Structures are given as structure tokens and as C-alpha cells.
């Protein structure tokens, strides 16, 4: 009780630290309980490993951090450019957003090896993958932020005869700042993740290389030490950007909700996806041709179509691809749904117990920034190579962002309406059902949307590194066998399916929000 009372008073940093301490203690205890099982290294052992290999660790960390930093820079620069383009030329927004999403849905597992062939040795793939991992999560909130101003602020600018450039400079730049920082905060750990995945694809140095080596050698303390280091760095980067935002006195924005672009059912209607697909294919072809890339590994849309439809072995190619997709679906769909359900349920429960929420919130915010995918090898160590391990990792990848978003959403419940309920002495359940849950829905859907590409990333990485099943493994295998037809076909199919899944969730979101949060649905 005393601890609980102390927690209620203390600041979030202290509470997060307390929670972290609790986790470390539990971690050590379970490590001791499982000693001899050869799957879990406790914090003491991890600390010893880090101390003994400090030179190696610092060198690897420096390498990965540098790639991540460059990717962070280029990715966010791309995000800002795209968002400003979409705002200054509103007609372009739909196309910009759709293409940005499609590129974000490219499976890193396959783009990694392709980039490796393109760049050769060096840190090109790591930087590119880090940039690919961050630009979309900055683009989305930035687009919301650039619009987060009342209409009269723009009319004020217009009433002096000034145009979009003045709006952008005097109004939008400032309203977007909190959203930009929120995006950068998510981007920092994501860039680290992207750089590590890039290193998985065959770099010479870096954290990713050491992680792969530790996993192959069943070096349990090594794998745990690397994962802990990656987690610590990610949390630190996340916190540092948060501190920077506070230092320039930028208040955190309300939860970022509005889906970018795609207002429901406008002119083009059902034709829009078709047009965008054609545009994407043309861009795909044009980029490869423009850079004059060798047709042996840089397959054009025509090559993929031929491999899937016209070639003598097309039927077999399709069968292989479908079988792999089915295996992946068995892991990713339950994992995704479980992560969403758990995130929402736990957030709901925890709101009913305010003390628990004060501990859980900062902890969850910290854990959300852990690049779970980079600890995939640990999942394999812990849970084996079966479906259970894959599903758990996907669920974890989805759980944390959903949980944090839902907690934020539940807290958005308007105080005045809660007061009305209080005036009728309504119980906590009535408040939850009638006020808090509807208030949570926009945040829930925003998380569900972004979780689609995230869970695809998680499942493909785990399949590639560990289970040897599904589309992730097929892509890795195709890359190592130089079966570039299969590789490009997989990339195209996975990107399309991810984007379609994202679109499906957006549609469900629009339907539900038009009833519960009409102000969130853009017309």
C-alpha cells in the first residue's frame, strides 16, 4: 500500500524505473529457475558478458548506430518532403500516400538481399533499410500535424491575400512540430531495427552480424546481451528525442489518429486501387530501367508476370508461393489478432485499476520502443521453432503499440461527459462502456492500421531467421539460390497483401468511426 501511494505521487520517470527494476528482478529470477535449460541468460550474466566483450560491443554498436543515424536522417527527410508535397499540392496526396504505404509494405527481408546485390559490400543496404523503416511512421503523423489547425487560422492568412506557402510557414510548420517529434520518437528505434535487419542480410560488422553469429552458435548469453543492448539503445533514443521535444517546449500531440489520405468513396471509387497499382508497376519498371539495372537480378513487372503466369513452371511457382503464404497466414493472422485483443483488453482493465495504470503506462511506452524483431533469435531460443514462437513474437510486436495507443485513447474520454456520469453516480463499468471505450476506438484503429505492416515485418523476419517456414523463409531461400523471379514475385505479393490488409483495416475504421467519432473521419 505504501509503495502504491508513493507511486501515485511520484513522477513517471521514477515509476518507469520502478517497473523496470521489477522486470529485471523477475528476469533474473526466471533465469535462475531455468538455469541449465540453456535458453535464458539473466541480467547478471548479460552484464558479465557485456563487460567481458566491451571492446567488441562498442565497435559493433558504433557501426550499427552510424548506419541507423544515416538512415534516420534520409528516411525522415523523405517523410518531410512527401508530407509537404501532399499539403502544398493537395491533389497529389492520395497518390503520394498510397505509394508511400506500398513502399513501406515492401518486406525488408527481401529488399535487404536485393539491396545487398545492388550495393555490394558496405553499409548501403543497412542505411536504406533504416530509412525505409522510418519514413512512413514519420510521414503519417506529420501529415496529420500539418493539418492540425482550425480553419480560421488559414483564413487569417488568406484574408491578407497570402497563399499556401505562407500558410505552410506561419501556421502549419508550428502545428506540425509536436507531431513531427512524435514521429521522430517512433522513428529512432525503428531506424536501429532497420539497420540491424540490414546487417542480417550479410554485412561484415555490426550488432546484426553479432546477433546472427550468436544465434547460430547457440551462444545464449551473447544473444541476450545483444538484445538487451539493442533494447537499451532504443529506449534511450526514444527518451532522448522526447527530452529534446520538451526542451524546445513542444507539448506532445493528442494521439495521432486520422488516416492519411483516402477519404471514403470519392470520385475515383473502385477504380483508384487499379490506377494506383498500374502507377506502381510503371514506377517499378521505370526505376529499374532508369538505373539500368541488370535484368538477371532486377526483375521487371513483366518478368514476374511471366514467372507466375506464362513460364512452363508457372503452376509450380504459384503453388510454392501459395503454400508459403498459407504457412505465414497461420502465424500472422492469429498473432495480429491476439496482439490487438490483448493490447485493448489489458489497457481497458488497467484503466479500472488506476494505480496499475500509473506503473504500466511509462513502462509500456518504454517497451514499445524495443525493436522486438531484433530479439527474434531470443524468441526462438525461448519458444522453439514452432508456430507458437512465431505467433507470440507477432503478437508482442502488435501488443505494445496497441496497448499504449489504447491507454492514451481511454484517457481522452472527455471530462465533462464523465462528470455527467458521475452526477448519476454511474459505476466504473458504465463509464467504461459508454464513454471510455468509444473514446478509445480512434486510437485503437490507428494502432491496428499501423500494426499490419509491423506484423508482416515480424513474421517474415522470424520465418527467415528461425522457423524456416512461410514466405519469409521462401524469400531468404530464393535470395540465396539467386531465384530472383521467385524473390521479386514474393516481394510484390507480400507488399500488395500488406497494403490490402492496411486498406481493409482503414475501411473498417472509417465505418466504425463515422458512428463513434465522426470528427475523425475526413470528408
Amino acid at each position, binding site marked *: 500500500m505504501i509503495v502504491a501511494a508513493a507511486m501515485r505521487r511520484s513522477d513517471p520517470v521514477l515509476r518507469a524505473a520502478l517497473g523496470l527494476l521489477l522486470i529485471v528482478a523477475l528476469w533474473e529470477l526466471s533465469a535462475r529457475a531455468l538455469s541449465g535449460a540453456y535458453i535464458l541468460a539473466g541480467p547478471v550474466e548479460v552484464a558479465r558478458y557485456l563487460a567481458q566483450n566491451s571492446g567488441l560491443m562498442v565497435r559493433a554498436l558504433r557501426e550499427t548506430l552510424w548506419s541507423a543515424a544515416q538512415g534516420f536522417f534520409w528516411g525522415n527527410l523523405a517523410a518531410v518532403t512527401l508530407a509537404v508535397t501532399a499539403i502544398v499540392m493537395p491533389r497529389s496526396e492520395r497518390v503520394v500516400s498510397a505509394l508511400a504505404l506500398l513502399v513501406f509494405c515492401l518486406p525488408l527481408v527481401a529488399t535487404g538481399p536485393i539491396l545487398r546485390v545492388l550495393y555490394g559490400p558496405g553499409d548501403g543496404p543497412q542505411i536504406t533499410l533504416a530509412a525505409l523503416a522510418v519514413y512512413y511512421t514519420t510521414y503519417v503523423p506529420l501529415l496529420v500535424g500539418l493539418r492540425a489547425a*482550425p480553419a*480560421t*487560422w488559414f*483564413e*487569417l*492568412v*488568406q*484574408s*491578407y*491575400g*497570402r497563399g499556401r506557402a*505562407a500558410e505552410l510557414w*506561419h*501556421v502549419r510548420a*508550428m502545428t506540425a512540430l509536436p507531431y513531427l517529434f512524435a514521429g521522430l520518437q517512433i522513428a529512432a528505434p525503428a531506424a536501429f531495427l532497420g539497420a540491424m535487419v540490414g546487417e542480417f542480410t550479410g554485412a561484415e560488422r555490426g550488432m546484426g552480424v553479432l546477433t546472427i553469429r550468436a544465434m547460430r552458435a547457440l551462444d545464449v548469453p551473447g544473444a541476450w546481451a545483444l538484445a538487451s543492448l539493442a533494447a537499451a539503445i532504443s529506449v534511450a533514443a526514444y527518451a532522448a528525442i522526447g527530452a529534446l521535444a520538451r526542451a524546445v517546449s513542444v507539448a506532445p500531440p493528442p494521439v495521432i489518429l486520422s488516416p492519411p489520405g483516402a477519404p471514403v468513396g470519392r470520385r475515383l471509387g473502385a477504380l483508384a486501387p487499379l490506377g494506383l497499382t498500374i502507377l506502381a508497376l510503371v514506377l517499378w519498371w521505370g526505376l529499374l530501367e532508369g538505373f539500368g539495372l541488370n535484368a538477371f537480378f532486377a526483375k521487371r513487372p513483366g518478368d514476374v508476370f511471366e514467372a507466375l503466369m506464362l513460364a512452363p513452371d508457372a503452376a509450380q511457382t504459384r503453388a510454392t508461393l501459395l503454400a508459403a503464404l498459407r504457412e505465414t497466414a497461420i502465424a500472422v493472422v492469429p498473432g495480429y489478432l491476439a496482439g490487438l485483443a490483448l493490447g485493448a483488453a489489458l489497457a481497458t482493465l488497467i484503466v479500472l485499476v488506476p494505480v496499475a495504470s500509473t506503473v504500466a503506462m511509462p513502462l509500456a511506452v518504454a517497451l514499445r520502443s524495443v525493436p522486438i524483431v531484433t530479439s527474434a533469435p531470443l524468441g526462438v531460443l525461448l519458444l522453439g521453432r514452432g508456430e507458437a514462437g512465431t505467433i507470440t513474437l507477432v503478437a508482442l510486436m502488435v501488443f505494445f503499440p496497441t496497448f499504449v495507443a489504447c491507454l492514451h485513447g481511454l484517457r481522452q474520454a472527455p471530462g465533462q461527459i464523465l462528470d455527467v456520469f458521475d452526477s448519476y453516480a454511474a459505476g466504473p463499468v458504465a463509464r467504461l462502456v459508454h464513454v471510455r471505450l468509444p473514446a478509445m476506438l480512434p486510437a485503437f484503429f490507428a494502432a491496428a492500421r499501423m500494426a499490419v505492416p509491423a506484423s508482416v515485418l515480424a513474421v517474415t523476419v522470424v520465418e527467415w531467421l528461425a522457423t524456416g517456414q512461410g514466405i519469409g523463409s521462401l524469400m531468404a531461400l530464393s535470395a540465396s539460390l539467386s531465384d530472383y523471379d521467385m524473390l521479386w514475385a514474393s516481394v510484390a505479393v507480400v507488399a500488395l497483401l500488406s497494403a490490402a490488409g492496411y486498406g481493409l483495416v482503414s475501411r473498417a475504421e472509417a465505418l466504425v468511426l463515422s458512428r463513434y467519432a465522426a470528427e475523425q473521419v475526413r470528408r
Partner: protein
Amino acid sequence: MAPDASPPEIVCRGLSKCFGATEVVAPCELTFAAGQTTALVGPSGCGKSTLLRLVAGLEAPSAGSVTIGGAPPGDTLRRGQLSMAFQDPSLLPWRTVRGNVTLALKLARQRKDEARIARLIDLVGLDGFAGTRPGALSGGMRQRAAIARAMVTEPAVLLLDEPFGAVDELTRQQLAEDLPPLWEARETTTLLVTHSVSEAVMLSDRVLVFSPRPAAVVADIPVALERPRRASLSSSKPFLDLTGEVSEALARGMAAAAPRLAAQ
């Protein structure tokens, strides 16, 4: 403002506005004389604000046209000679009071005139709050800051959309005394949308009374009270006669519209 600029006449010809199937402003022919202050009075939601926005070029008319000094509103806007004060103060929260007032000069591409900025902030009673951000001000103070912002560019056309809505009664009276001399000195063509009958009479040279939506003029009442007008005027017989006339016209407009509204 350019030194040669004299206040323009504003002319609306066959002007109307519909939002979808809803007619908000009925076709009207209106002329606002150069340098005059006209008050637009009518029940809430009748479309007077829309009329103001049409004049400011913020809405495109469904039919007809608006000209300011013989040219489309856009020309006046682009010369930075029009200012509008909105119902909502619309101050940028990251700028101080001074910063918000200065912004208008920037947007109008005018020289930053520190003395004029300070004088206006002083005039609206915000001296001592020039360095304060809007978040720390009361609703009435914010609205006064917005008025200072609208006036700092010394516009040829001033559009005020219920600018005193959130201002307390005492400040309201004070502003009603202090502000008109400013736009009279500059000879500004001013349109003032208001709910308050006495404010309309106190501030204007002419009161236009509107019917419920769609806005149509039911009375055009000249206000020939001499200036400067003091608060004491509001208990004089001519003033009370005028407010009575405006109130009656308002009631007439409501009564005439009642069957139509009931049918809806």
C-alpha cells in the same frame, strides 16, 4: 497601407450563396459606402457571417459578384488592405500578443512598426500582456488582441465578425468608445456583424437588419448620431428611438419568417 489609398466602396450585385441545397444568403443588391461603418444585425445562423466571408473573398459566391473599389476582393486582399476579425479570436498559440499583432504586418507585407504595435496593444487594454501567450489570457483579452491584430495594418476595409462576443460588458463599452475614432481617422470601410442592437447603433453609420436564413435585408436604418459617441449617449432619446426601430425590424423579420420556419 499605401498613402494614396482612400477607402473603397463595396458593392454586391445579385450576390447569393447556397451550401448544397441550403440557401444561406438570398440574392441581394447591397452597396456599402466608402468610409462608412455598417452594422449587420440578425438572428444567429441567418447568414450574416457568410455575407462577410463573401466580401472577404473567403467564400466564392453561388451567383452574383462582390467588388471592392470596383475590383474583385482578391485584389484588395493581395495588397494587404483588408483585415478581418473572426468570431473565434484565432490567435496563434505559440506567438505572444505582440507576435500575433506583428504577424498581421508580416502577412500584409508591411514594415514592422514597433510604435504602432505598442500603441494598439495599449489601446485594447493589453499593455503589460504584450509578451504573454494567448493560452494565459482570458477569453475577452484574446478577443481584444485579435482586434489589435485586425487594426494594426490600418486596412482600407475592416470586417468584424462579432468581435466583442466574448468580451465582458465593461470592456465592451470601453472598446465601443475607443475603437471608432481609429477607423474614422483612417476612413476605413467597416462591416460589423453583431447580435447586440445597442452595439450596432453605437458603432455604425447605418444598420442593416436581416431576416432568418436565408439572409435577406428587412430594414436599412441610417444612424445619424453625431460623433464622437460617448457611453452616455446610450441613454439619450435619439439613441433609444434607433435601438427601438432596429429591435422592431428584427421582430418583424422573425414574424414574417415564422410560417416558413414552421413549415421546415
